[in-house]
């Protein structure tokens, strides 16, 4: 659909270029005309206008103010320099609490952050929008005007500040022609825009005082008015228009249906919203008629009163337009009568939306709707209550689960207050998408039916309420099978505070725990420097790139990257580099490689989606010339686990950074140095690039330094002891974790022994030796030593049989004969086969022997799991 729109929209410069920049070789223009192919309507955008710019979220396009318009010599490229505004939904979820209140759905913030591309393609401009600046304490106006956005604060990626009013000087015309239409929503689907734009045009000629009141500046309107036809012509054009619109909207509607059939998933959300938006133009037309008939001040009030029924759209959105159009006289009654139903439906609708929506953006929308209703129609509140109670009681009847009570209560509360709570919203889950899908189809069907009957309105309303009432019941039932995923997963906090280390050994032990974050990372200075400069340059340049980091476990790969990020964050806070976004995923911490998409998306935007959908959203995000993305630094730990047969996850991860607009830096970590060559197919390995780094295992000096730096002058170890540990570990694996664990164990051993002689409190060689023995010595020999007589005898029988056969494998039957012979030699009573089998099984359970399945009985084959010498050594020393 989007592609279609792009084709339809035509962008042209208006007038001659104002000036020519020789250096950059471009022409600067004063205004840009956007027209839609095949329609006479044009939008004119001047510098200083506020505009909507096409973004990833179709419901919430980007908002910006045009500062400069220019094109290159050949006229091929049209560009615009803009000042950005951010919506609340674009602010990182983690930073939203800084606001200290719930953002108004219509609220935007003046963007002062850096690292944002201020140059955009003019082709991405959708249409103008009105932006008003409000004073700090002023409340947000409660108007139904969805096309006005309000600026109160500015956002510089770290804090919210009051906007300097000079920034949005009143001299710059903030208003746009569209502002006179409170009904057209800024978040309408692009498909709906052509129609609404047409309506706009019609409205312009009427010098409506109400409109004038609403408009912040009249300048622009005048220019518009001059270009538009006269009033009479406007009336004529109107009927014409409406017909065209009818057919257009019809075909759009069918298109949409098809689309909905094709694309499940989040599309559905759009689907749900779309009906009301589609019907908007029609409502516009009605109010237009009214406006033009009376042309008085009173109209403003009337318009306000007509506005609530818009919320009713779901009821008759799919009715054939023609029918509705023939009864425009009804428009008066709409304002009051349906309001009874509104509540009902709204509550239902809210719940539907609740279940459907996942994105925050839609939440704000719902909010705005619901907040409007009580204002417009306070009278029918009781009836609404009843219906709400009815609904809730039905739900309750269906679900007698006590456990769900709380959950339900919150739901019913929502209905009564008309504010969907955050909790309930977040409770929707991907898993239940299917259910929702069915539901929405159901709802639609019901609506279609009511529309088809074309009964008088009152009846229609009744029937709709009925159908709608059914849905919440179903919804309720579905809700029980829901994840009651309440925002914050936590382990309860302890009732009694944790003790603090008292003596020096305990302090040392706390410091030596792997989890304690050291002040700095010693021995990884070079690696740190390399990674730091790599990421830093990428962030400063605003480009993307990949880096592959390898090294055996416990060599500080992840720790170093975290350290780098910490330093970069500090630098960003000091405004030395542009701010960036850090995301971490771990191959081990997901159930399936494709979950990587889900996790990245959630950490990036807070959205929840299925893997496939998340992949497409991310693809879109990183491919589209989204002008304002901060650089994203993505750390992929345990890369090898993201391997799939087609390797598409890895491919995507490495492909995104190469896209021009992605601004993505990917740091990958894995254990093996040659992972790209070993498991990746060529196109993946090629995209990963050659920026490699390998972390060598620590040497003994480095390990010693690490322990020393961790201990930080706490004298708990003898120097020799430290050296012994580090030498031993360096010789074995060079794993820092192992080293720290041994030291920790040694402090424990020291503590235990110190109870006898309390004078000595230093960890010495003997403690370290004990700890090393505990951790590294094989227990097989002690296990053989402590085995029972028959078990030892059986092991000897196995060895004897192996020697006889000259093989390393024998059947139980053969060993049994040896065993019997040995019994006789040892002077023990001969024991039965069952007994020897039991002995054999016990040895097998410890893995001293490797056995076949015990079903085979005497036929099972036996192997040794330790060397014969070890057994003989263990048996001899008795």
């Amino acid at each position: 659909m989007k592609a279609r729109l792009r084709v339809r929209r035509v962008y042209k410069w208006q007038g001659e270029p104002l000036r020519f920049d020789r250096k950059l070789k471009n022409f600067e223009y004063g205004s840009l005309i956007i027209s839609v192919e095949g329609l006479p309507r044009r939008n004119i955008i001047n510098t200083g206008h506020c505009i909507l710019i096409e973004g990833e979220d179709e419901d919430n396009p980007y908002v910006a103010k045009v500062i400069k318009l220019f094109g290159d010599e050949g006229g091929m490229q049209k560009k615009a320099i803009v000042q950005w505004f951010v919506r609340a939904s674009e602010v990182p979820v983690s930073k939203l609490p800084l606001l200290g209140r719930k953002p108004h759905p219509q609220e935007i913030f003046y963007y002062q952050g850096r690292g944002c591309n201020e140059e955009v393609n003019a082709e991405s401009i959708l249409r103008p929008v009105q932006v008003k600046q409000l004073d700090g304490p002023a409340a947000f106006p409660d108007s139904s005007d969805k096309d006005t956005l309000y600026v109160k604060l500015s956002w510089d990626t770290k804090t919210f500040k009051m906007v300097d009013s000079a920034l949005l000087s009143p001299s710059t015309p903030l208003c746009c022609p569209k502002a006179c239409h409170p009904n057209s929503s800024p978040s309408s689907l692009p498909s709906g825009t052509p129609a609404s734009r047409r309506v706009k045009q019609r409205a312009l000629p009427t010098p409506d005082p109400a409109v004038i009141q609403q408009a912040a500046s009249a300048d622009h309107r005048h220019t518009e008015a001059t270009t538009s036809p006269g009033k009479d012509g406007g009336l004529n054009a109107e009927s014409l228009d409406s017909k065209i619109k009818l057919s257009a909207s019809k075909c759009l509607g069918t298109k949409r249906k098809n689309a909905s059939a094709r694309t499940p998933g989040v599309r559905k959300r759009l689907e749900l919203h779309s009906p009301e938006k589609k019907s908007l133009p029609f409502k516009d037309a009605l109010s237009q008629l009214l406006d033009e008939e009376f042309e008085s001040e009173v109209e403003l009030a009337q318009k306000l009163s007509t506005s609530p029924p818009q919320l009713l759209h779901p009821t008759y959105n799919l009715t054939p337009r023609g029918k509705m159009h023939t009864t425009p006289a009804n428009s008066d009654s709409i304002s009051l009568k349906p309001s009874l139903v509104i509540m009902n439906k709204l509550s239902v609708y809210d719940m539907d939306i609740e279940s459907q929506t996942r994105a925050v953006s839609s939440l704000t929308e719902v909010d705005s709707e619901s907040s409007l209703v009580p204002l417009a129609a306070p009278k029918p509140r009781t009836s609404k209550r009843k219906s709400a109670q009815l609904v809730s009681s039905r739900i309750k009847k269906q679900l007698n689960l006590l456990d769900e009570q709380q959950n339900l209560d919150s739901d019913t509360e929502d209905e009564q207050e008309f504010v969907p709570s955050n909790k309930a919203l977040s409770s929707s889950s991907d898993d239940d998408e299917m259910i929702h899908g069915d539901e929405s189809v159901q709802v639609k069907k019901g609506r279609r039916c009511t529309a088809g009957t074309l009964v008088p309105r009152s009846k229609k309303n009744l029937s709709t309420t009925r159908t709608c009432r059914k849905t919440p019941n179903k919804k309720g039932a579905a809700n029980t099978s829901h994840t009651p995923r309440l925002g914050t997963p936590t382990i309860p906090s302890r009732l009694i505070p944790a003790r603090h280390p008292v003596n020096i050994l305990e302090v040392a032990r706390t410091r030596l725990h792997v989890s304690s974050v050291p002040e700095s990372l010693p021995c990884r200075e070079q690696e740190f420097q390399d990674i730091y400069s790599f990421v830093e340059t990428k962030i400063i340049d605003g480009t993307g790139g990949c880096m592959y980091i390898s090294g055996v476990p416990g060599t500080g790969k992840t720790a170093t990257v975290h350290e780098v990020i910490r330093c970069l964050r500090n630098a960003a806070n000091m405004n030395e580099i542009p701010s960036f976004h850090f995301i971490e995923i771990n191959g081990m911490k997901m159930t399936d490689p494709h979950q990587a998409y889900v996790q990245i998306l959630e950490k990036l935007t807070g959205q929840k989606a299925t893997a496939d959908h998340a992949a497409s959203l991310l693809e879109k995000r990183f491919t589209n010339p989204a002008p304002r993305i901060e650089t994203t630094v993505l750390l992929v730990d345990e890369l090898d686990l993201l391997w799939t047969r087609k390797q598409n996850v890895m491919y995507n991860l490495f492909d995104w950074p190469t896209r021009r607009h992605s601004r993505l830096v990917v740091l990958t970590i894995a254990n093996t140095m040659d992972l790209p060559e070993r498991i990746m197919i060529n196109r993946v390995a090629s995209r990963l690039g050659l920026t490699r780094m390998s972390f060598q295992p620590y040497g003994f000096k480095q390990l010693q330094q690490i322990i020393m730096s961790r201990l930080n002058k706490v004298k708990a170890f003898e120097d020799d002891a430290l050296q012994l540990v580090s030498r031993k570990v360096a010789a074995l694996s060079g794993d820092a974790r192992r080293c720290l664990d041994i030291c920790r164990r040694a402090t424990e051993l020291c503590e235990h022994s110190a109870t006898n002689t309390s004078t000595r409190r230093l960890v010495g060689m003997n403690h370290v030796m004990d700890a090393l023995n505990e951790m590294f010595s094989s227990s097989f020999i002690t296990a053989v030593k402590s085995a029972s007589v028959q078990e030892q005898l059986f092991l000897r029988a196995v060895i004897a049989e192996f020697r006889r056969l000259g093989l390393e494998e024998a059947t139980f039957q053969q060993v049994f004969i040896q065993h019997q012979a040995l019994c006789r030699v040892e002077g023990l009573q001969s024991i039965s086969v069952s007994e020897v089998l039991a002995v054999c099984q016990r040895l097998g359970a410890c893995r001293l022997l490797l056995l076949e399945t015990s079903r085979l009985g005497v036929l099972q084959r036996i192997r040794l799991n330790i060397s014969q010498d070890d057994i003989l050594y263990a048996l001899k020393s008795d």
Partner: protein
Amino acid sequence: MSKRKAKGASKPIGECISQLQKCLRERLCHNRIPSQLEASEAQHKHLLGLLQRTANNGESNSVLIIGPRGSGKTALLKCVLRDLLQEKEVQKNLLQVHLNGLLQTDDRIALKEITRQLNLENVVGDKVFGSFAENLVFLLEALKKGDRSTTRPVLFVLDEFDLFAHHKNQTLLYNLLDVSQSAQAPVAVVGLTCRLDVLELLEKRVKSRFSHRQIHLLSTLSFTQYLEQVASQLSLPDDFPDREFALDWNSSMRRFCEDKSVEGILQRHFNSSKDFCSLHMLLMLCLSRISTVNPTIKPADILEASRLCFSDAKSNMLHGLSILELCLVIAMKHLNDVYEGEPFNFQMVHNEFKKFLQRKSSSVYNFEQPVVMKAFEHLQQLELIRPVDGSSAKTQREYQLMNLALDSSQIIEALHKYPQCPTDIKQWGMSAFG
């Protein structure tokens, strides 16, 4: 018969006996945790200290308790937990999660179980909602939120730890151990396993995150200690209702343990296995023979019990065979002797059997081939013979190769004990060659 006089003083003998049975059975069957573990004092101290530090200081730890079956791993852990929970501070703070590798056979189930036992927010009643991926993210999120000093410590007990290592990617182990090595909610991961080579099962990244603390429970029990253990297991406690009966019983048990034949039997058991499970089995069998008529354990009782314990399962099964089936088994034994364990088929066995019949010339055992075939199939159903691997149903049943899953000693033993075994068959079975 001094006991009978003693009984007259206080309670009827029947009541005493039933009290005795109840007391000792509880001890032997319910696996009551002993008040103190003598053999594993050091291990107990180590584990207790470790868990105390987790509970009180919020220090994350991981440890493996390794020992053969029946060596008291679970007993040690239970003992430590009992001692640990006596501290009020710990009792209020510590959260416990118990998993068993035999029950939680994959990570999906294990995660649900963890979430359920921790009673996290996505638990409603007894059910855990959400997909596998969501549950994992949820749990990790929950653990990540916590920190060392403010969050309640969580104790994860993984019974049959080695089975968790077989889960896909070892995701659960990686994550648990990773939490234990990072500044998140304090956890203690305790694994119980009987596999000595369990560390080799861990993937290198998982292994690196494991702290390598291992507590080995290898019994160093000597026979005298074993005998003491038997005596203490059988003696009645001081708070037994009938004091005189208890004294009598205890002295008789002391005499019983000093008996040479009893000692011999116990020695044999000790030689076979040192764990207490088999000992408890033996003592239970003795205990169930006690009645008013027979109010104490006699050496004969333990002899009988030991015979039951050591009896060979397969040769017991041979006692229930028909004569024809027994003949077939004998024929197979001879074939095995002749061909040195090479597999045989039905025709060979039948021929061998017919040779025996020809020699005898008495046609008492002269059966039709289908009847013999049926007997042969019955032996296969009893798994006394097994088809050789790889020879599938393609071949005719008569020619399918079979192996005898019995040792010749078992057959000879069965022949001795077979009720009313015909002499000629017995002789045929005993003879070296068919």
